């Protein structure tokens, strides 16, 4: 391959620890695909990475406008990468609108690679800069390093002899840019070439054209004088645990977690679901897992989504439903039924900005109190939260384990940020996954004593009776049930007993969950940053930096929100102050205050955006000053 010779050229190469890149262009420019290719290449190369797509909420917004800009952000690095980067180091702007929409998030002095063909009069006008105000000419970008490349023209020249139509040639311009970026970051072309060959296996001319374009981009980097002043960069592979890796988004990971739990438990998975942003990919992923026996039921509404799952759970399946805030509200009556029926059910709620339709495509952590208390009656259920895209797998898996082994609905919280972000996942071997043991009552004979569907074991857990099993015929429902027999009972003392038993069962889940550990920092100190959910990456970085700066600060992250780990109070007691950053107005804060009668410091951000590490680090510094 010609790459070998290209790589031989001596260039000035600057080593970087991590780089955050944004690919931005029009919705039709293939930025998601380009970003994904770059992500796959750095992953295979051995970097750690984290990606986040940023696309318009409209499906086909007007081309060339700011509303139509689609972006794909990723950060890759030599050490662990927890976020796609608060700001980017490099921005690819395929047109004027892409530049306008994203310039504010580029680091001061950052690199801009533009397609100058996307800055013609028409694009300037549509972008809102105006035909007379070309930002490439008027000094707007004087604080940045700008590489102006006539991408469309160069792609056309490179592919002139392919015989393809101009339209098809122009579609390869994203590959040209990708090639330039591979050169700039000293990355190999192999992964992308391999993917293109597979993707266009039946359209060899297109495969060849795309490969030509990416190679031409690479060669352009090599030959042009444009970069000579800055040279190339390289990011050494990360020191990752050896093994087999795949890249997953949070939603894919949630879906695979459920399917894996069903396999491990020897149960069939049933998902009753209704499409809702940003949770739909869980339904989509599971609908494609028929080879694993997964049954998905796209219900007529959110209510039927949860009720069909309850029916399937009664039938002995591992049943789940997934949704986002508005859907969780609609499911709440059904969840109360699942609580009183005491059947296993997993609810994955992918949180988004609320209330009401709110910010459907933007993340928030504002459903925590609804997850905890959003049902009528005293209706507690375990609540757990995922902290990263990969962790969505383990959270969903663990939710299923608790549901099945404690005969209870379990609410698993993720959010729109985790749902769409991706990162490499070390593929676990089946043996590494915790066992999941459903306990079905065995068949009974005619002379056995009557079956007692609500006779509890020493953990207050009732048995699971699968229809079809002789001798276990029983009738249960939403009406209060008599202790042990499960018959309808309006007896006042029985209702109080059953209410307490249901709560006790959920509280006893604390017996099997691990103690809260300190993720980073000293076991005793000035400030504990207590997080939950998708704030993990930002807190992790912030605490790392604060520790480097000599601060007495530690980070602990809550997976289990109901019940809390048994040692939570003790851990918090080892610090002078507890800081709780949340993408809501202080929901975990009020739970902690309520349960432990302490006064933690809350830190809210409700902008439809995740925290960045600088914000949290600044807050830590503020608190330390006041101590």
């Amino acid at each position, binding site marked *: 391959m010609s790459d070998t010779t290209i790589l031989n050229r001596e260039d000035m190469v600057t080593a970087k620890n991590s780089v955050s890149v944004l690919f931005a262009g029009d919705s039709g420019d293939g930025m998601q695909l380009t970003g994904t290719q770059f992500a796959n290449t750095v992953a*295979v190369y*051995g970097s750690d990475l984290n990606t986040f797509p940023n696309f318009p909420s409209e499906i086909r917004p007007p081309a060339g406008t700011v509303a139509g800009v689609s972006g794909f952000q990723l950060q890759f690095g030599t050490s662990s990468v927890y976020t796609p980067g608060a700001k980017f180091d490099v921005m690819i702007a395929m047109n004027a609108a892409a530049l306008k929409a994203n310039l504010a998030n580029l680091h001061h002095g950052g690199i801009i690679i533009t397609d100058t063909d996307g800055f013609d009069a028409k694009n300037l006008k549509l972008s809102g800069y105006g035909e007379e105000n070309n930002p490439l000419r008027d000094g707007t970008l004087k604080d940045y390093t700008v590489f102006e490349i006539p991408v469309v023209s160069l792609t056309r020249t490179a592919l002139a002899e392919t015989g393809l139509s101009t339209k098809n040639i122009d579609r390869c311009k994203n590959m040209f840019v990708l090639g330039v970026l591979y050169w700039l970051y000293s990355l190999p072309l192999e992964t992308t070439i391999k993917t293109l060959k597979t993707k266009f296996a039946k359209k060899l001319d297109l495969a060849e054209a795309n490969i030509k374009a990416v190679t031409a981009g690479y060669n352009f980097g090599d030959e042009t004088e444009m970069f000579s002043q800055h040279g190339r960069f390289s990011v050494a592979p990360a020191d*990752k645990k*050896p*093994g*087999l*890796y*795949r*890249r*997953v988004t949070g939603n894919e990971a949630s879906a*695979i977690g459920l399917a*894996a739990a069903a*396999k*491990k438990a020897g149960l069939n998975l*049933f998902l009753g679901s209704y499409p809702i942003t940003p949770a739909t990919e869980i339904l989509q992923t599971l609908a494609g897992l*028929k*080879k*694993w*026996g997964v*049954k998905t*039921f796209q*219900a*007529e*509404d959110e*209510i*039927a989504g949860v*009720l*069909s799952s*309850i*029916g*399937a*759970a*009664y*039938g*002995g*399946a591992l*049943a789940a439903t997934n949704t986002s805030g508005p859907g969780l509200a609609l499911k709440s*009556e*059904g969840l*109360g*039924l699942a609580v009183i*029926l005491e059947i296993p059910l997993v609810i994955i709620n992918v949180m988004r900005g609320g209330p009401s339709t709110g910010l459907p495509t933007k993340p928030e952590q504002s459903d925590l109190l609804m997850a905890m208390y959003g049902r009528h009656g005293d209706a507690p259920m375990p609540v757990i939260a995922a902290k990263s895209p990969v962790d969505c797998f383990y959270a969903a898996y663990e939710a299923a384990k608790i549901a099945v082994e404690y005969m209870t609905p379990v609410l698993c919280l993720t959010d729109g940020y985790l749902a769409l972000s991706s990162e490499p996942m070390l*593929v676990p*071997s*089946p043996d590494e996954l915790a066992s999941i043991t459903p306990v079905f009552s065995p068949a*009974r004979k005619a002379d056995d004593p009557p079956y007692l569907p609500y006779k509890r074991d020493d953990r207050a857990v009732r048995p699971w*009776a699968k*229809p*079809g099993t*002789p*001798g*276990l*015929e*029983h*009738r*249960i*429902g*939403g*009406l209060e049930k008599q202790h042990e027999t499960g*018959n309808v009972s309006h007896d006042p003392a029985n209702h109080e007993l059953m209410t307490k038993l249901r709560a006790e069962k959920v509280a006893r889940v604390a017996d099997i969950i691990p103690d809260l550990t300190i993720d980073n920092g000293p076991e005793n100190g000035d400030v504990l940053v207590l997080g939950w959910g998708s704030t993990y990456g930002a807190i992790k970085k912030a605490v790392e930096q604060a520790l480097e700066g000599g601060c007495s600060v530690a980070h602990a992250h809550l997976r289990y929100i109901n019940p809390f780990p048994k040692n939570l109070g003790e851990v918090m007691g080892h610090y002078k102050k507890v800081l709780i950053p949340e993408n809501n107005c202080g929901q975990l804060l009020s739970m902690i205050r309520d349960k432990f009668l302490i006064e933690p410091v809350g830190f809210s951000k409700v902008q439809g955006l995740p925290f960045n590490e600088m914000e949290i680090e600044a807050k830590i510094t503020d608190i330390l000053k006041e101590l």
Partner: protein
Amino acid sequence: MTDTLAQLTAKDFTSNQEPKWCPGCGDFAVLQQLKNAMADLGLKTEEVVVVSGIGCSSRLPYYIATYGVHGIHGRALAMASGLKTARPELSVWVGTGDGDALSIGGNHYIHTVRRNLDLNVILFNNEIYGLTKGQYSPTSKVGLRTVTSPNGVVDHPINTAALTLGAGGTFFARVMDRDGKIMREIFKRAAEHKGTSLVEIYQNCPIFNDGAFEPFTDKDRKADTTLYLEQGKPLVFGKNNDKGIRLDGFTPVIVDLGDSSVSQDDLWIHDEKDFIKANMLARFFDDPDASEDFLPRPFGIFYVEDRYTYESALSAQIEKAQENGEGTLEELLAGSNTWTIG
């Protein structure tokens, strides 16, 4: 607990819970015929699940010695759909009422019917909300005075037959609560039908809507107000079977069979496979009290269509996906695109 060899009797399907319906309620008759039909069908108690929503009739599962789930208001069909999809081999029956199925659960009704899961749905229609003490329901007649319609109902009532056929239903039958023998046979036909079988029972509520169906049960009037459908038989009714229905183009007309110019051969012959005619029968929905000029109300099986069931089609897709073997946990965890480090 059942002996798997002997055919069970209705008594074997009787649970140890005493029904708590009002004396004289039409629900008792339905319960009895349902147990009779289950025994006739040779079902075993462990293979049957009775699912219900909320309302007087939704207490049904407690009184049958099979598996049963009493759910929440309006959602019986959604719950039954999940159960049947997960466990196609079970015999799943749904007890629901006019408020449960057609008001709060209306959305689930139309979608369950079109999906055609193999469910047997018994819709107890008493044209009133009984459990909440007498408010009008979506099937109440216009003008009915109730606690929430002191000046008379103004809502136009739902026509269950037309709704079911309009939603793509594959089995619709109507039965009067006091017609025990017919009900038993229709329940069996419903069970044998592969698809969502909808049986609407006109069920008298003696407390809050007594006599709602009197125009069709009064011994002096019923011969002229009701039409009993029988497969392959002409549409004949009247005190001495002296009236028939003939189609004049697309218009059903009542003809006098005593008239020598009218022959039995001219009459509409009932064909439960005929979708167009079933839709016309569904529109025989006149109120005999409202005018002298009315078509009789049909009872019996309106329509039966053979169509694939949802769960069988889904299971077939899974079988196809697994034709070269079921996916393993290793394959699931790795996915299709991996790389190795170290």
